[in-house]
Each structure stands twice: as C-alpha cells, then as structure tokens.
C-alpha cells in the first residue's frame, strides 16, 4: 500500500467514524425536535440528552480529523473543494456552532424558557447540518467541483438533484441511526416506553431511507450519469451490501433485536460511504486523481508516523475511559453509548469519547 492509498484509507475511516458517531448525534437532534410538547416529549428528550451528552464532542473531533487530513494529504483538491463549496461549508460550520453550544447551554440552564430556546436551536441545527453535509457529498459525487480555485458554480454545484438527494439521504440515515442507537440505550436502562417510541421512529425512518435509496438511482442516472455508471460499476458490491444490511436492519428492528440491529445499521451506512468512495476512485475531483493531488511523500510519511504514535496513546486512553465508565458507582449508573456516565457533576461537560 502506498502512502497515498494509506492516506485515502485513513480519510475513509475518519469519514465513516464521523458519519456513524456524530451522524447519530445529529439524528438525535431531529428526534428531539419531533419529541412533542414539554411534558409528553420530556422522557424522550431526557433520553437523548443522557445518551449524547458525554460523547458528542469527542465524536465531533472526527470531522476536524478529516478536514485537516484532507488538506494535509491533498492540498489542491482541498482548495478546490473549500473554495467552490464555501456556502454549504459555512452553513455547516454555523450549524455545528449552534448545535454544540446550544446543547451545552441547555444543560447548564434551569429555566424552562431558556431550555426551550436552546433546545430549539440545538434541534434545528441538528437538522440543517447533516443536510448540507450531504449536499456537499452530492456536489463532489456528481463531479460539479472542478479542480482549481473557485472554478465551480458556488450555488448550483450543490443545489441540484444529486445534492438535494444526498442531503435528504444524510438527514434520514442519521436520524435512522440515532433511533436505532437510542432504542437500545432506552431498553437497557429499562425505559420501555421510550424504547418503543424510538423503535417506531426507527422503522419509519428506515422505510423512508429505503424509499430514497430506491428513487436514488433514477435521480442519479438523470442528473449525474457518469457517477451513476461508476456507482453501479465499481461500487456495485457495496451497493448490494448496503441494501442487504438495510433490509436486515429493518427486520431485526421489527423483531426487537436491538443489539444486532446496531451493527447492521452501521454497516449499511458505512457501505454507502464506501460505495461512494469506490465509485470515485482514483479520482478526487473530475480530472484530478488522488495521486496527482497528493502532497509531497515526505509529508504523507511524517503525518502517518505522527498519527501512528498518536494511535498508541489514544487506544489505551479510550480503553481506560470505556472501562472506567462501564463500572457502576453508587446508585447504579446506567451506562450510555460510548461508555460515559450521566454527568451528574458538571454543566455541559466535555465528553469522554
């Protein structure tokens, strides 16, 4: 494996990790929005806060990881990407600001009107951000971001059928993932009703995602035929895998196999991302391959070395974190996804990973 492919693979890992971890945190925001009134929605909201509170920030670091590795590994491609897509990128950044801070503020505030205000900001931005992230992916996939600085159309590169489709798909899959994860969290903590509620939501969003996946190819063949051909060529195995895992997830969710469905749902989403990557490979942008855009080999090697050293530090730290917070303390503390406890001690706490 050359340094370039190793770098691409790392980017892929970062992207999948972000989609599966932070994506679900965004999806939880959508469910927070749709949870209902202050009283009827309270249990679901409490569940959401409980589950994502300790983990969202560490999950979020994956995005920074992807962005900095992108510019380190493939600078000209990054420049083209960021300059043409500055509008959705700015909106994503605002969404991230609103979401993260509103979530922390909501936890630190005690009055109902404040919680409503911050809660609304948190929920709305949770919906907006994945949509634009998806639209960005759509712009790249449909080949509308040419190499060079700001050479693409700053609006129509992402505001087009493929971009909108990808945005909606991102929105629906993240909410689906969230519902699946939350169902299991709620069940484990003995919150039957909440678990049932999220199971229903999971089934609905799963079906919607399936419908989008069925319509998708028609949109793609009409709007981005080149990509559609490659997706059904290079990316075909992944497409099939995603469909299989997607259907399996619906069945498992229906039969209340909450642990197994976590795995299959995650695999379904990971397969879509991998399929996209394979369909594009070796091109990052139209006419620009990863090899052509790659940074100086010395840089790739140095960054890979630094990241390997980093991994040696990170893995045991993460393991300790996980073990530490899986152990209960006095009143038996329900463990949450990512292994962190309910933060009984701090305001908008910085989460463990």
């Amino acid at each position, binding site marked *: 494996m050359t340094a370039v492919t190793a770098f691409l693979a790392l980017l892929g890992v970062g992207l999948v990790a972000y989609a599966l971890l932070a994506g679900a945190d965004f999806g939880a925001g959508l469910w927070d929005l749709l949870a209902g009134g202050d009283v009827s929605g309270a249990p679901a909201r409490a569940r959401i806060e409980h589950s994502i509170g300790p983990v969202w920030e560490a999950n979020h670091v994956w995005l920074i990881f992807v962005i900095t590795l992108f*510019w380190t590994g493939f600078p000209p491609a990054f420049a083209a990407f960021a300059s043409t897509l500055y509008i959705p990128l700015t909106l994503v950044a605002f969404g991230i600001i609103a979401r993260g801070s509103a979530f922390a503020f909501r936890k630190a505030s005690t009055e109902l009107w404040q919680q409503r205000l911050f809660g609304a900001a948190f929920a709305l931005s949770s919906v907006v951000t994945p949509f634009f992230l998806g639209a960005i992916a759509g712009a790249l996939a449909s080949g509308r971001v040419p190499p060079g600085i700001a050479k693409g159309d700053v609006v129509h590169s992402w505001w087009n059928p493929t971009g909108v489709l990808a945005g909606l798909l991102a929105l629906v899959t993240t909410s689906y993932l969230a519902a699946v994860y939350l169902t299991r969290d709620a069940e484990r903590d003995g919150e039957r009703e909440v678990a049932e509620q999220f199971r229903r939501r999971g089934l609905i969003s799963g079906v919607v995602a399936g419908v989008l996946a069925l319509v998708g190819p028609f949109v793609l063949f009409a709007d981005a035929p080149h990509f559609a051909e490659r997706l059904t060529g290079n990316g075909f195995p992944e497409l099939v895998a995603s469909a299989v895992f997607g259907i399996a997830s619906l069945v498992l969710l229906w039969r209340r196999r909450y642990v197994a469905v976590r795995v299959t749902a995650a695999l379904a989403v990971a397969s879509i991302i991998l399929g996209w990557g394979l369909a594009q490979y070796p091109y990052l942008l139209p006419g620009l391959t990863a090899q052509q855009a790659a940074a100086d080999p010395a840089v790739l090697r140095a960054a890979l070395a630094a990241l390997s050293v980093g991994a040696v530090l990170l893995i045991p730290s993460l393991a300790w974190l996980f073990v530490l917070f899986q152990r209960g303390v006095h009143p038996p503390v329900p463990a949450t996804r990512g292994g962190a406890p309910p933060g009984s001690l701090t305001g908008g706490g910085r989460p463990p990973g």
Partner: protein
Amino acid sequence: MVLIVLAQTGAAPADLVAARSQMAFSLGWHIVVACLGVGMPAITMLAEWRGMRTRDPLYTRLAHTWARAMGVLFAVGAVSGTILSFEMGLLWPGLMGRFGDVIGLPFAAEGIAFFIEAIFLGIYLYGWDRLSPRVHLLSGVPVVVAGVASAFFVVTANAWMNQPTGFTLAPDGRAVHVHPWSAMFNPATPAQTVHMILAAFMVAGFLMASVYAVGMLRGRRDRYHRVGFLLPFAVAAAITPVQLVVGDWAARVVADRQPVKLAAMEGLYETGTSVPLHLGGLYLDDRLRYAVPIPYALSLLAHLNPHAEVQGLAAVPPDERPPVNMVHLAFQVMVGCGFFLLALGAWAAVTWRRRRDLPSTRWFLRAGAVSGVLAVVALECGWITTEVGRQPWIVYWILRTADAVNPAPGIGLGFFAVLVVYTVLTVASVYVLRRLAGRDPDEPETGIPVPAAPQEGSPLRADA
C-alpha cells in the same frame, strides 16, 4: 496601505477586507476561549491538589466550581475552533492549495492532542466519584499536556507563515521537497510558541482572579472569594515577569528575521544607527509624530548594541509595507499591559511579604478586577502585531494575502453572518457562565458540587 494591497487581488476588494476581518474576528474570539482551555485545567488541578494536601474543603469546592465552568468553555472552544479549520480553506484556498501540506503535520498532531484532551477531560469532569482522589488528580495531567501541546502545534503553523522554511518552490508555484519537521521547527517557532503558552496561563489566571475581585468589590470578602482570587492571581503574576523576558526575545527574533514588521511596530521610516525607541505617537506621511523618544533604546533592545543599525520601512517598496499605526499601537498596548500586570503582581508580592496579606485598598481590587481584561487586551494586541505586521504577506515574502483569498462571488457576506452568529454566541456564553458563577458558593460541602445539569431527572423532566 490597505488600498495598495487591494489593487492586486483577484477577488473584489471589499471581499478581501471582509475575508480578513472574518478571519481576524473568529480567531480573536477563539483565542480567548482557547487560552482558558489551556490554562484553566492546570489552575483547577492546583486547587484540587491543595485541597488534598491541606484537607481544606474550600479548595475542593473551588476546583469543582471551575471544573463546571470548564465544561461549558470547552464546548464553546471546540465549536469555535471547528469554524476556524473550515475558514482556513474557504477563505484562503490559495494558501491551503499550495502550502496545506507544508503545515499539515502540526495540524495532524493537533488532532491527536484534541482527542487526548477530549478523553481525559471527560474522565476528569465526570470521574470525581469514580476515582480515588489521587488518580482523579492525575487524570488531569494529560488534559494540561494536550492543551499546551495543541497551542504549541497550531502556533508552529502560524510561525511558519512568518518564517516559511522547509520546502522548495517549484516553477509552477507548488511547494516541493517538503521537510515537514523543519517547516514545523522554523526560526520563529521557539519564541512564538513559548510566548503564546505563557500568555494562555496569564489570561486564564488573571481572568479567573478578576471574577473573584469583582465579587470582593461587591462586598463578598469571605475566605472563599479571597482564595478564589489569590490562587489564579498568584499563578498569573508569577508568570508575568517571565513573559516579559520572552516577549523581549520574540522582539529580537522579529528584528533579525522580519525587519519590516519591526519597523512598523516602531514606526521607523529611515534605516539608521543608534536608533531611539519611541513611546506613543502617530505615524503620518512617513514620520512618527508626537512620540516620546528614548535615545539608543531601539538599537539596544533589538540588537543589544546601542549603535546597531535598524532597518526602516523605506527599505521596501510601499506596497510591501504593513499598516503602521495599527501595528505600532497594538505593540505598545501589549507592552503597556504587560508592565501594568507586572506592577500589579509586584505590589501584591510586596504586601504579601510584609504582612502575609493582600493590599487592603479597594484600588488593588479594582486593578485586580481589570487585570483579566488587560491580559486579554495584551493577547489580542499581540496577535494584531504579529498578523497585521506581516501584511501584505500571508506567507512572508512568498505569497500575498490578496492572492490567497477565495475569489468566489459573495464570499464577503460571510463576515456579516459570522458577526451575527458570534454576537449571539457571546451573549449566550456570558449569560450561562454568569449564572454558573452566581450559584451560591456557600452551600454545605457535600463532596459533590451542585449539579449544573442533574442528568438524573433532567431539568426538562423536572420542570415538566
């Protein structure tokens, strides 16, 4: 000056100004929170450690309070940092497309530091009752190390913009034969990183002390407030003299390596020998007016020789000179704040030696209350000196800011959007932090601080 820069850009001139303002504004905002992120964990751990040693619950209570504020601050720091990494690309694609890889290594390393920080901060904030006191205290160490490391890494990238080394320019303008390690450890790195890290501890210490100084001015002179003031104040005041020495070192590096920046900092037009240092003044028509000269001082400070030659702005063509007044003023304000804070620390140290107590006059508390603001002012002015003093270059002598900016239409609107978003963010952060600070500090010590967010029975549920 700005006009000259603008003449060369591919982007609309107003867009360049807007992009620069957007970058400056979001960096200027992030850096305050980032300094708290670097400095606060160490000071909090110090309180926790004193609490363990003296068995005085007061220190533990302080540590709990500060940890709670850290929770909010870190969330805000993370999101405001994220937008910065976006802006590097969407505002300055000309920089990232050509040199993104050259400064990539420190950013990759910074990513690791962020992960470590996030993990151990989680353990520290959520682990009070799960770990033995010793282990809990130790779990804070990686947070401090990672915070200092991330400050170090990101400032090496900035130092590289001031002293670009570690690559060869190919004819097509791309950087080739890159040596990422020598790019990271460029000549500007040592002084800039040390100066920045010390600044972070000063800002955190003085800001935290200010909060309690204000409390004492309002009549809350209990021991809780006194210790809450004294501990962070002592840390910051002890660092201040070192910081001034390091600042002097930084200035000498600038004199050797970025003479145009130094000339702008001093408002010096003509190259000369035995040059005086000027205090105050206004730079008009290539002359510094109304300033107080100190003979030989600039030659002496910059090159350790009262007769040394110091290069003036006239040595470079007008379109390569930064805006002088802004840089000169910012530099003087930074140095002024530094000396004020030094004097304040010395005052406290003298009375402390005499009678084991802080100066009893309200003036001391008033000065203590503004010390945090002044540390932040020094910090911002330092960055204005560095960044504006480098203009019109984004990469010194290699790439002009005007050539790096994103030429896409409408980019300038981003600045106004950023202004609105950050205004809301500032108001909300200050409001939430004030409420956290305002919670009754005198409630009985339970070993567990008042949960800011009782997750069991979340506030939402409780109110429902």
